[in-house]
């Protein structure tokens, strides 16, 4: 029997099962992020993982200075704002005081790899048992698209108008690879959220990082290449393509370090 449109709309519950909706631990607030931004995808994955691992009640997050500075408007978990770049130090203070809580910082590339380089490096070196979500969009987003530590060579930004020049501006920094050299780091993976397949992989990586923390394994970091249509001056679809066609050449996806897998 052909179902009419009215049947489906009036009575979806016995006929249709809802298989995808907003995760429990994201608030109802609509996101302020630009159309096609990767941040809210990352937020959703973290919220899904927190729900799946049943750790909401003991999770404390540290948002960055950046577009996600008001992440506490979205995550329904305890959150503590940090001065710009200092998320890893703030997270250290929380985790050392409350070692049984799950503590994560959520930081952009300027926050983590420019002003916050020392704090990130040393928290990693101390093997602080925290998880860092490193959202890499190769620019300073919130402040309007300035060059960042991860801006690609030749990439135009408001402070590298002719394109990033290796001689004048230095090279993009691969923080994940650098931190992997430190013995205190235990699991580092680089992901992206530009396609459904990459999103699913990112979700698995985030879950694994939290599980490592739950097992007191040490410092974990998930770098997420995040499309930024506004500051890359592209449409969202083109921005997603740019991640695959250009960005991953400098920032290849995959596991960079996994001490548990290495045994």
């Amino acid at each position, binding site marked *: 029997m052909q179902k009419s*449109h009215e049947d*489906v709309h009036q009575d*979806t519950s016995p*006929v*249709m*099962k*809802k*298989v*995808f*909706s*907003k995760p429990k631990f*994201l608030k109802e607030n*609509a*996101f302020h*992020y*630009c*159309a*096609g*931004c*990767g*941040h*809210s*995808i990352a937020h*959703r994955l973290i919220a899904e993982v927190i729900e799946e691992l049943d750790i909401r009640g003991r999770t404390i997050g540290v948002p960055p200075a950046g577009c996600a500075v008001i992440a506490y408007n979205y995550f329904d978990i305890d959150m503590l704002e940090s001065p710009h770049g200092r998320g890893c130090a703030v997270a250290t203070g929380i985790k050392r005081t409350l070692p049984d809580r799950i503590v994560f910082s959520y930081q952009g590339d300027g926050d983590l790899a420019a002003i916050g380089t020392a704090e990130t490096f040393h928290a990693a070196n101390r093997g602080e048992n925290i998880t860092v979500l490193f959202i890499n969009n190769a620019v300073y987003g919130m402040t309007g698209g300035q060059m960042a530590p991860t801006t690609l060579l030749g990439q135009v930004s408001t402070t590298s108008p002719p394109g990033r020049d290796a001689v004048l501006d230095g090279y993009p920094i691969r923080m994940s690879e650098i931190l992997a050299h430190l013995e205190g780091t235990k699991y580092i993976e680089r992901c992206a959220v530009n*396609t*459904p397949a990459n*999103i*699913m992989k990112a979700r698995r990586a985030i879950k694994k990082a939290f599980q490592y923390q739950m097992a007191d394994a040490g410092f974990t970091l998930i770098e997420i290449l995040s499309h930024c*249509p506004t500051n890359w001056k592209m*449409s*969202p*679809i083109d921005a*997603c393509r740019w991640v695959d066609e250009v960005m991953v050449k400098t920032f290849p996806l995959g596991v960079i370090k996994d001490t548990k897998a290495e045994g």
Partner: protein
Amino acid sequence: MKGLIKIDFERCKECHLCIYACKKGHISPAKDYNSKGYRPVSFQEDGDCTGCALCAITCPEIAIEVYRE
């Protein structure tokens, strides 16, 4: 397998990533404006959507709910 999506008219920001993700072309741009000034995309209800949820997974606004038989 029959699937169905519901798009939140006020949350959609017209980024079209769902259109890019849907291999079957069940989502298309539309003309009505929401209160934010975006033109939310619309779902073709009489297609053969399987409820694969790739559109919802890629949607930054979590504006899509997916139903499956």
